[in-house]
């Protein structure tokens, strides 16, 4: 390849990751989505720990406390928040199991990696739908 030809196909480097670029320009592949959602769901669960512990504490303290938690959890915003946390737990669970297989060098090729990413996203939605249906 001539010097001139090499120059015409060279992309501008370095490329800076501005917020608009992150939001609109760079499109994550499916495994990338599973990965970043694994992190986001983990962080979400960490921040929710205090709330969940508070509910566990109250629900086991007395019958009145248990009923208070029941009424509280029936409120629509609370229910929605709990559903989001249930999704976070299911996603973190499924993505974690996929990660364990990746650790063992299973499913690291592009095809299987994409397939299992889709499976993780679908399975966590299906799990949270089933759990939500069973609990409410």
């Amino acid at each position, binding site marked *: 390849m001539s010097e001139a030809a090499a120059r015409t196909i060279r992309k501008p480097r370095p490329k800076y990751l501005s917020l608009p670029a992150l939001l609109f320009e760079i499109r994550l592949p499916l495994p990338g989505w599973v990965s970043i959602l694994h992190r986001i769901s983990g962080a979400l669960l960490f921040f929710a*720990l205090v709330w969940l*512990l508070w509910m566990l504490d109250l629900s086991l303290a007395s019958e009145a406390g248990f009923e208070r938690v029941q009424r509280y959890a029936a409120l629509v915003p609370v229910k929605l928040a709990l559903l989001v946390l249930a999704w976070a737990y299911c996603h973190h669970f499924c993505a974690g*199991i996929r990660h364990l297989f990746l650790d063992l060098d299973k499913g690291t090729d592009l095809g299987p990696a994409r397939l299992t990413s889709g499976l993780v996203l679908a399975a966590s939605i299906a799990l949270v739908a089933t759990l939500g249906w069973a609990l409410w």
Partner: protein
Amino acid sequence: MVRRVVTGAHYGLRDWLAQRITAVVMAVYSVIMVFVLLTGKPIAYGVWRDLFSQGWMRVATLLFAASLAWHAWVGVRNILMDYIKPDGLRLSLQVGTLLVLGAYLGWAIQILWR
């Protein structure tokens, strides 16, 4: 020569392995818990209290809570190492995370053995 940073990783396998082992402990507990809750009687206060008054349940839940604390520590520390660049701020947040997780674990023990 690797530049050793006090707020960095331990340059070893320990936390990596701990994160995976604690994950498996929590996964097993979760599956058992879902099975117990969905196949047992409808959850009224008595059922709920009796479930958590059994010795095996308390110990299993304690193992779950301890695994959660350790697992969350490794995960949160990874996030802090990725995004928080100033050493002082990162160390403060890491210490804060440890203290909070330690407090949660103490709280969980209090809830279980009341």
